[in-house]
């Protein structure tokens, strides 16, 4: 668009293999957790047929627990990358902690509201997205804590932790379930905005989460001077 007078784009490596693995593990485990979780909360079908075993609830729970361990591992990777990842993956790059980032936050809001035409040429997350992802990570922690408490109610330290945070199993159950809707909400908005950004921005962010590379305007990259290109 406008500012890219030269019309050239350069391919910038942004996301490490670890981050991409985190993203897809998190995404797939989230989908599994949401679907099995909704079943566990309210199994829509009752198998009244007794002539064959179905074991449906036990199977759903097994999938739920398996996915939960992938979810936890993915989150551990994300925490590591927040602290020790590349410059675009670190927490200080995607949260409004500097003047540059606060500008990016407002830029993204204005851009999404169709009030600015210019897409910000920025290798990492835009700060609106980055801040929201931090929030998602925080809610994920809450899901993990409540989930562990529900899954291992009699295990010493988990029980103490759960009792201190939630007070009772029923409260943990309630929070665990209510937060499921947050993940549905987030997934919907996230997928929509990715497609939207793919249309209105030039970066190719959807292919970026597979390839780890973004297409940035050559002029902006040259102006910045610190961005390593391929």
């Amino acid at each position, binding site marked *: 668009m406008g500012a890219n007078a030269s019309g050239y784009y350069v391919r910038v490596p942004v996301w490490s293999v670890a981050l991409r693995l985190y993203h897809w593990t998190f995404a797939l485990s989230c989908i599994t957790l949401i679907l099995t979780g909704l079943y566990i*909360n*309210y*199994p829509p*079908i*009752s*198998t*009244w047929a*007794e002539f064959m*075993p*179905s*074991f*449906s*609830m*036990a199977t759903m729970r097994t999938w739920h627990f398996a996915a939960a361990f992938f979810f936890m591992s993915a989150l551990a990777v994300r925490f590591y990358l927040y602290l020790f990842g590349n410059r675009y993956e670190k927490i200080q790059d995607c949260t409004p902690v500097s003047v540059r980032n606060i500008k990016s936050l407002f830029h993204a809001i204005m851009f*999404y509201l*169709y009030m600015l035409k210019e897409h910000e040429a920025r290798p990492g997350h835009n700060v609106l997205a980055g801040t929201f992802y931090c929030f998602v990570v925080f809610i994920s922690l809450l899901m993990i804590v409540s989930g562990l408490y529900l899954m291992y*109610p*009699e295990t010493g330290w988990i*029980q*103490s932790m759960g*009792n201190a945070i939630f*007070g*009772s*199993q*029923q*409260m943990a*159950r*309630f929070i665990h*379930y*209510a937060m*499921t*809707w947050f993940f*549905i*909400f987030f997934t*919907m*908005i996230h997928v*929509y905005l990715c497609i*939207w950004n793919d*249309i*209105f921005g030039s970066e190719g962010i959807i292919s970026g989460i597979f390839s780890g590379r973004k297409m940035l305007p050559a002029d902006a990259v040259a102006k910045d001077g610190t961005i390593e290109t391929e």
Partner: protein
Amino acid sequence: MKEKELHGKLSLSRRRFLKVCASAAAALGLGSEAVPKIAEAVTSPKRPPVIWLHFMECTGCSESLLRADSPDLATLILDLVSLDYHETLMAAAGHQAEKSLMDSVEANAGKFVLVVEGAVCTGDGGVYCKVAGKTNLETLEEIAPKAGAIIAVGTCATFGGIQAAAPNPTGAVGVRDVIKNKPVVNIAGCPPSPNNFLSTVLYYLTYGRLPALDELGRPKFAYGRKIHDHCERRPHFDEGRFVESFGDEGHKAGYCLYKVGCKGPATFANCPVQRFCDVNWPVGAGHGCIGCTEPGFWDRMSPFYEHLPDVRIPAGDGIYVEAEKIGKWAVAGAAAALAGHAALGVGKKVLDSRKCSSDSGKED
């Protein structure tokens, strides 16, 4: 001899008496070597004094205790412990009763077992519940420090119970919230299984210390596992066979009560194993668990026929909505917003392209 004396005193045969001790040992998860110890403890000439205080309650816990059948608690507790004060059961009344209470407290300081039934009223200085002109709070604060052991019986005495349900006008709390410097054994339940209470007392009499407690002060032998994890209907849960509504085919077939609001998966108690009076228990009779042994029982466990508690909407005064509905509305709202956003984007593109074409038209 001893057996004869025992027989005369208790109207219990030795065989029956040992059976009682053995079932108490089994309830506590102790081996057969504990039986003679229990037998010795309960037959020692010095009967341990028990003082039973009633606060804000319905006496259902005492009723439950009276209906205990094995071990034959009614006989055992009345004959083997010295029940010095129990408002429902004692013969004394008025000033005489209150005097015997204080006499026993002074004479047995540091030795007696204090049992509390009912929530403690703390609102407005505790004026909403007075016995003999004294508030519950005063009575408890006076007697509790002198007790050898404190046992809170029932969910009211443990966590506040129904009295503590929102908006809790009387400021009802459990004994643990008032007595903080002494261990309190919580025998939760509405009412609790009498066997859990009796077993705790016998454990204390036998070993001179309290049984292992969980974080909420409940004895682990009785409240160590969730109802769900040793429920007789659990296989139906795993199979995905649920009662859809009371009285349907699934209900008649004894399927899992999960979908009609059973709180077993969130409740710690031994009801499926111990049962009430060795006869039955709610889930066995076809009704879901209502979670009566848990903190926040009432507010957090109601509605009884729903899976999860309702959400109170802060804006509306006293409006409660299902969590499910709030989640669905939030997601629907977001979907509508996204659709609007997309439509705006498409509209803007169309407008822009028209502008462009009209601009280029001018240039031509």
